[in-house]
């Protein structure tokens, strides 16, 4: 049996420059037709969709093309007065994931007053468990994604004091693996997306010291494949969103130079669709707002000067994080 590295080959006619206008048009048009099939079928994650689109637009300095007042009114309408949590869309149930997305959007708009902030604090706090972990909603799913959502959400509201931060950190650390990475719960395999969540949690809680920085960063830089793209676990195909999960983690570890920036940039640019606009997971696939954000944010970390600077912990424009006077930790070891 001969081993073959899973990867893609970039074609010669791939996009090689950043098509900002195309992406801005793509996102501005997304959701204009409320009867669009894709749009309707993704209602259950609408709030995150708004966060992906708005952040991408912000990074391109085009957020004025988004219907700001409509979005803010929508968020207000999605808050559940009883639990304080926010849902993906009207009629759906409040959940940690969408509560965070809503808070991120409002933080970018500097309109956190549009929701009952104490309600959000109450909701997030109510989801912390005895062992420090967080569940996504009252149904009890435990995941390190929710730990990250919780601390990010509360820190954006300057209310980290509302939870037991030490226990939250201890739980995340109990998910650390032999390779220095993290999974979704204790015992789970390392995965770049969850590594981002766990490193991000430690960055916000200022406990980056607890990481095995060299081991983890080595595992992360080994995600880069000959095409320049990054995968999320060993022996998997590259996917554009890992440009964000891996690169943001490496940024927080101050080791972004462990990957080849030029090759990665080529891969990210190749994931653009020159006709429709937007980015996809791999060259030639269908584009969507999710990958469009992470493509742009990845390019921002690589230092592309036509995109605003993104904060590696929050995946929001650095200027928003500065305005809120937040200082997530970067590791200097």
């Amino acid at each position, binding site marked *: 049996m001969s081993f073959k590295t899973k990867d893609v080959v970039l074609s010669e006619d791939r996009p090689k420059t950043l098509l900002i206008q195309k992406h801005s048009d793509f996102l501005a048009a997304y959701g204009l037709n409320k009867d669009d099939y894709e749009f309707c079928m993704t209602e259950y994650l609408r709030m995150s969709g708004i966060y992906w689109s708005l952040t991408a637009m912000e990074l391109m300095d085009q957020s004025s093309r988004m219907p700001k007042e409509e979005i803010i009114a929508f968020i207000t309408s999605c808050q559940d007065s009883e639990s304080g949590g926010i849902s993906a869309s009207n009629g759906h149930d409040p959940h940690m994931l969408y509560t965070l997305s809503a808070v991120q959007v409002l933080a970018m708009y500097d309109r956190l007053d549009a929701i009952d902030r104490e309600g959000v604090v109450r909701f997030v706090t109510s989801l912390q468990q005895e062992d420090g972990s967080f569940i996504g909603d009252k149904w009890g799913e435990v995941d390190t994604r929710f730990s990250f959502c919780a601390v990010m959400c509360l820190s954006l509201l300057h209310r980290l004091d509302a939870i037991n931060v030490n226990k939250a950190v201890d739980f995340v650390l109990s998910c650390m693996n032999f*390779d220095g990475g993290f999974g979704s719960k204790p015992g789970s395999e390392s995965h770049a997306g969850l590594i981002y969540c766990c490193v991000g949690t430690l960055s916000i809680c200022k406990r980056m010291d607890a990481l095995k920085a060299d081991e983890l960063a080595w595992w992360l830089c080994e995600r880069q494949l000959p095409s320049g793209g990054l995968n999320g676990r060993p022996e998997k195909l590259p996917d554009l969103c890992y440009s964000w999960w891996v690169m943001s983690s490496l940024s927080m570890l101050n080791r972004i130079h462990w990957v080849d920036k030029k090759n990665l940039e080529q891969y990210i640019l190749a994931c653009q669709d020159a006709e429709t606009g937007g980015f996809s*997971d791999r060259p030639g696939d*269908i584009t969507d707002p999710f990958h469009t954000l992470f493509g742009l944010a990845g390019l921002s970390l690589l230092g592309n000067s036509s995109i605003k600077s993104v904060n590696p912990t929050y995946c929001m424009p650095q200027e928003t994080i500065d305005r809120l006077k937040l200082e997530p930790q970067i590791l200097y070891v």
Partner: protein
Amino acid sequence: MHGRLKVRTSEEEKARKEKERQEKLKHFKYAMQKIFTKRKNGDQDKEQLDLTEKVLSSNPDIYTLWNIRREVLIYIRKNIDSEENISKLYDSELNLTEYCLKINPKSYCSWLQREWVLTTRTDPDWKKELELCNIYLKLDERNFHTWDYRRFVVSQCKPPLQEEFEFTTEKLYDNFSNYSAWHYRSKMLLELYPDLEGGRPIQDNHHKHELKMVQSAAFTDPDDTSAWFYQRWLLGAVKETIRVVTFTVTPQKTIVAWNKFVSADYISSQLKVYFNDVITEGKWISCNEHEYDNLWIFNHNEEIVENINVKIEHKTLDNENEIITCEKYEPFVFIGKNKICFQNQYSESVMKELNEQLDSCRQLLALEPDSKWTLLTTTFFLHCINASLYHKEVVENLQTLKKVDSLRAGYYNDLISKWNIEQQLPCDYENNSLHYKNGFKEKLTSLPHLQYYSFCKTVDLSNQDLTSCILPFLKKLQICEVLDLSGNKLTTLKRFPNLNLEVLNLQNNHELNLEEIELFKEKHKSIKVIF
């Protein structure tokens, strides 16, 4: 959207598809509307289960619909049905999740629903669940949801851990490229075979056995990366102890550097500072203002006079007492240094195994001198077996790796910097100089272990390959007076820390902006900036 290829279609085909989609959408919207209305009206009945089932069968990620199903099931159980019928309902719920997982094996909601059913019903069949995991892992051996679910099932039905360990062996002999199985194995190895007496993570004979297993895996196909990560972990699985490395007392500052991050609580309980044989109380401040740090500043009220006797006593977590006594290096400068060692300590039998494997690696390397993984592994064996003896060869290998595996050149450069510093440090700790300069020809690209040099008054980092990324590290140079950063690759001074420098040389950093230097000078008036 993951892995959906864009396909070109004719206009006609497009129109036909769009019509089909609009039809589907109509049904979808109607069903959702009906479900939400029923929920509002409190209709928790069989019809609601049927409606949600229909939508979920093609859209298993609509989380709210699963919530509604659980509410209905709870309601039915509480109010109406017989135990037998309930059990049937649970069975059909499991069938639904199975169906959904066939459409999307990574559907978080479907997996959660399955967990919920099994922990809610009174008659769960865990054995069947474990078998289901076996089947799913045959279909996709890397689906982390299935692995997580397996761990959940195991936590409920508690089969002997040994059986699970053997399951990973079986999986790995099917395919050594199964990283998920290596991962699971690492967890169980620590639980089954910890070396409680020796304080090492893994018992010797098992440590050795695992090394052998990795070797056979890795040599089956060196380009498959999975086993190499496991091997790297095994190589690093040695005992680690927190130690003080150096201790500096000047009239301005008293600082203690550690080999690892420690908290103020740790220091307060494990460390005593004696001035003239009397315990001194004071406050510990982290150099970076963090909860855990490897350099701590001790605020106390002792006066530092010409002749003073200072020592510290560190009680390690193994209850070993290390006492470090300060020596006078200069008038009013007292420094204590510990014995430092970066060499991994292995048992005799593991060491023997490492040496044997090194030999096989070298043989393989002779056949394929440019094989990245063979070269990298050889290099790590050399470093782990005897870092100082093999240092030259290690660095040469890393230089080759920069070419063979150029994507990760930045990593190899930093590794050279780190291992060069580790070679130099023990020598620098032997002499009485208050000066630091890189003694190797390879230029430094990063500054690991800088807290070890916290006692230096003059630090020469000139003509290295340092970028502005390293600036925050300089905070460790707490008593440095003269710092030379000339001839590097600095681009900005934005994150330059506050230090009590007298002289700072920034010459020949060609991308450093003049305006920024002027601003820096303005802000740090007491520093003489050479540019």
